[in-house]
């Protein structure tokens, strides 16, 4: 523990800390551009200069200087002030003073720090250098003349995103940041370089010239584009969501978000359901709320519970699912399901469907077996976490499923259940790797669970977890560890399973509901934002679609009830590790659309089975009373282990990929023009490549 003084304040810092970190520990603010705590140290901006004794009689870059015992650091001396002024003056020699037309204006590190350390005017009369802008794809706008060569973007793309495509060409005055051959930056995390860029060199292309930061209302909420539950900040002006930025949460998304979470928000403006619709003569016609409700109520009252069913979609908040479940229960229907993709998970043992190791726990793992999952597409931020762990060394990753480039070394053991069986019975050599590992993990993806034999695969994964020592009780020298981790793809899934939004006794699951609707056994289907099921299979059933986008569900529906998207309502989402997080309303639903729980509450009254809550608070209280885990906001309760899965025959078919196109996975991203452009750039173009390329 080096002990040093910073401006006369004594601090102890962990070994390996830098002087900059010591200064922060002492409460001294150090200006910086190139230093970023989640990236490697570059030490090239020189803004963080401090005076250190003992040492040479000149200012030193604190970000790259190890903290040592008995150092005396001065962050406010004359020498330091003069040095920082000098650095700032140098940085501004070639930086254009185009703040009025720069998108970074108002949230620019250079602008802010120039206020603190800059001169009132420039002493240079020479021409500034100009740099050609680079093409970096549909998401990143470049104005390279503004670049100050901090290389954060280069380090991020290489280290965190795992795509070595950006670099700094040339040197000195000719230095330029670019991608190789100016290709689009092919990473699902590329948008983060926009946040990292301390100046306006890399800015958001879809957000270009849209707004100034001080005009925006900022709402801290939760992302629903995958099951990670990334913490985001939604910036709105009026009712319009203009952009989405990541928020810091070390245990979930650190400070990154995927491009889909960041850029799909323009989908919130298109194809919205803004008023109730009723199908008349084969066409959806706009109607009033009371008319829509009475039509639905009429249908529901005429039917018995067994003839009705409800399916919850992937983006639903817990409250609306809970309300729908209670409504269905009150009309005597057990045909409810939240597993649109037909994943063979059941709700009885909580540990069977959670990412038990926790997302932060990935950093402790030393052997990971990926089963039927491509975390790079299904949970990019989690994939970055695995890569981070892999870069530290001492991690073995293997996969059973469709081979993919995950940005780290992965050994492909096999494609399907047969290989999994071999690992489970110990005949596969990788079983030994798992057994000898201290904290082994199996990450079970939907690709392995949505099949007919999903329950058998789940049972095999359980036996691997048990047989390879993944379930460890807490002992004196180590904490408890549960390496059995299910990686969901739907933001609503864990909440749905937690509240038992699954078929009750004698109830039908998704497949049964669709088949029943096709055969006429089920006459009424309520789709709560469910767009991913086979609509053509619903036969002649009366379909009610409650949701926010005119996607597959609304096209099939007989009645459309407009609901709210994730940015337009308060709601609880439970991420794949079982962390309940509260999403907050950033804007209002369009037109006559209402928050989903309110729609269900109003409908219940029309049906004559009024739900017992009149406010969101009362609903949440009822939810927590019924299922306590929803009350523990932002906490992960370790789930107790139990028996689950059903041993049985498995097919030889390889585990499929559940996500073919990362950029379009749900009704919001399918409506996004930006995501469509990304699909064209990164997915279609790749698929069209001929076999002559490598």
């Amino acid at each position, binding site marked *: 523990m080096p002990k040093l003084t910073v401006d006369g304040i004594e601090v102890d810092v962990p070994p390996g800390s830098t002087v900059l970190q010591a200064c922060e520990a002492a409460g001294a603010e150090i200006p910086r551009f190139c230093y970023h705590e989640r990236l490697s140290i570059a030490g090239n901006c020189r803004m963080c200069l401090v005076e250190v004794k003992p040492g040479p009689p000149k200012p030193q870059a604190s970000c790259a200087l190890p903290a040592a015992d008995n150092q005396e650091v001065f962050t406010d001396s004359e020498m330091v002030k003069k040095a920082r002024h000098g650095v700032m003056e140098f940085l501004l020699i070639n930086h254009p003073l185009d703040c009025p037309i720069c998108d970074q204006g108002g949230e620019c590190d250079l602008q802010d720090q120039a206020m603190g350390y800059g001169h009132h005017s420039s002493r240079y009369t020479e021409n500034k250098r100009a*740099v050609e802008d680079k093409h970096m794809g549909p998401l990143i706008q470049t104005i390279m003349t503004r670049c100050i060569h901090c290389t954060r973007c280069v380090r991020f793309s290489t280290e965190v995103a795992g795509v070595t*495509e950006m670099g700094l060409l040339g040197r000195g005055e*000719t230095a330029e940041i670019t991608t*190789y051959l100016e290709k689009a930056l092919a990473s699902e995390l590329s948008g983060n370089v926009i946040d990292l860029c301390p100046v306006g060199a890399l800015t958001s292309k879809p957000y270009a010239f849209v707004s100034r930061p001080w005009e925006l209302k900022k709402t801290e909420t939760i992302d629903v584009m995958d099951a990670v539950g990334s913490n985001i900040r939604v910036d709105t002006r009026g009712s319009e969501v203009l952009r989405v930025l990541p928020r810091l949460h070390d245990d979930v998304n650190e400070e990154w978000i995927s491009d889909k979470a960041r850029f799909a928000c323009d989908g919130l403006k298109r194809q919205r359901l803004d008023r109730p619709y009723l199908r008349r003569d084969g066409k959806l016609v706009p109607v009033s709320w009371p008319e829509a409700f009475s039509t639905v109520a009429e249908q529901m009252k005429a039917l018995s519970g067994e003839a009705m069913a409800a399916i919850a979609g992937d983006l639903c908040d817990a409250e609306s699912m809970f309300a729908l479940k209670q409504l269905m229960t009150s009309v005597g229907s057990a045909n409810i399901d939240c597993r649109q993709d037909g994943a063979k998970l059941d709700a009885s043992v909580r540990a069977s469907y959670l990412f038990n190791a926790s997302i932060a726990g990935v950093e402790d793992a030393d052997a990971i077996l990926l089963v039927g999952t491509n975390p790079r597409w299904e949970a990019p931020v989690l994939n970055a976490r695995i890569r981070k762990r892999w870069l530290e060394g001492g991690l073995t990753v293997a996969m059973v499923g469709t081979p993919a480039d995950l940005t780290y070394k992965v050994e492909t053991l096999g494609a399907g259940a047969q290989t999994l069986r071999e690992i489970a019975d110990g005949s596969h050599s990788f079983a030994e790797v798992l057994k000898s590992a201290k904290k082994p993990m199996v990450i079970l993806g939907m690709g392995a669970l949505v099949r007919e034999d999903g329950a058998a695969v789940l049972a095999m994964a359980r036996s691997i977890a048990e047989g390879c020592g993944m379930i460890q009780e807490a002992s004196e020298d180590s904490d408890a560890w549960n390496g059995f981790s299910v990686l969901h793809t739907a933001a609503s899934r864990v909440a749905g399973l937690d509240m038992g939004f699954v078929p009750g006794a004698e109830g039908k699951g998704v497949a049964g509901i669709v088949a029943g609707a096709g055969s006429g056994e089920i006459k009424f289907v309520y789709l709560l934002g469910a767009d991913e099921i086979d609509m053509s299979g619903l036969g002649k059933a009366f379909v009610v679609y409650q949701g926010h986008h005119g996607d597959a569900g609304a096209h099939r529906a007989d009645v459309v009830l407009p609901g709210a998207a994730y940015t337009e309502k308060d709601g609880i989402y439970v991420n794949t590790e079982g962390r309940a997080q509260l999403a907050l309303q950033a804007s209002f639903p369009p037109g006559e659309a209402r928050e989903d729980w309110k729609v269900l509450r109003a409908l219940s009254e029309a049906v004559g089975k009024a739900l017992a809550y009149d406010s969101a608070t009362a609903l949440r209280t009822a939810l927590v009373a019924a299922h306590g885990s929803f009350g523990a906001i932002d906490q992960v309760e370790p789930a107790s282990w139990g028996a689950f899965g059903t041993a049985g025959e498995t097919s030889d078919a390889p585990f499929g990929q559940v996500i073919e196109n990362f950029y379009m996975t749900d009704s919001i991203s399918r409506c996004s023009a930006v995501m469509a452009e990304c699909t064209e750039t990164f997915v279609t173009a790749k698929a069209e490549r001929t076999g002559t390329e490598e």
Partner: protein
Amino acid sequence: MSGHAFAENQPDSFSFTSENEAKADGLIAKYPAGRQASAVIPLLDLAQRQHDNWLPRVAIEAVAKKLDMAPIRVLEVVTFYTMFNLKPVGKYFLQACTTTPCWLRGSDEMMKCIKDKLGLDNHGASEDGMFSLLEVECLGGCVNAPILQVNDDFYEDMDYDATAELLEALKQGKPPPVGSMKGRNMSESSAGATSLTSLRETEAAYVPRPPKPAAEAPAEAPRDGGDS
């Protein structure tokens, strides 16, 4: 990519000759396993020497592949060093030092002569492909400033007339002996040695300039593969 753009006319493929391939493997073997990327500079040099003194895109990608590096990382190295050429250069690639000592000693005269005789400005190339000019920073031969480097060879003590003489000789394909154009020995005083004269006849301090056959043009002389 203003200053770092690839040449317009790019060859379709590049591969090391078998001789250079063996040299490359030897260079990589100098570094510990997994540190093969350390050999990037000598390999690029090897590739450049094999390919008329410039690096096409395919050569950069070939080096990247051989060293298991991302092409952008290799391109960063290529663009960092002025010694690597991304565009074709003349048969006689003139690198003129104009850093302070050379400038004080009259590098402007040398540059003016090149402009007069060949019509070349910095980064220029003659149409017949014989000459191209690059202004470079210190070549480390300040004692005999100014320096004009022709391919791998230093011509020293340049002035207007010496430059004209050198360029004319190069045009004839008869490069003069490398070293001082004023005939002084190494970096000795132009008036001859003034100290340690007693050692002259006896010791190795005096190394006579090796006579260089005029026929051997530096550009065509076999170049060492950077193994030194």
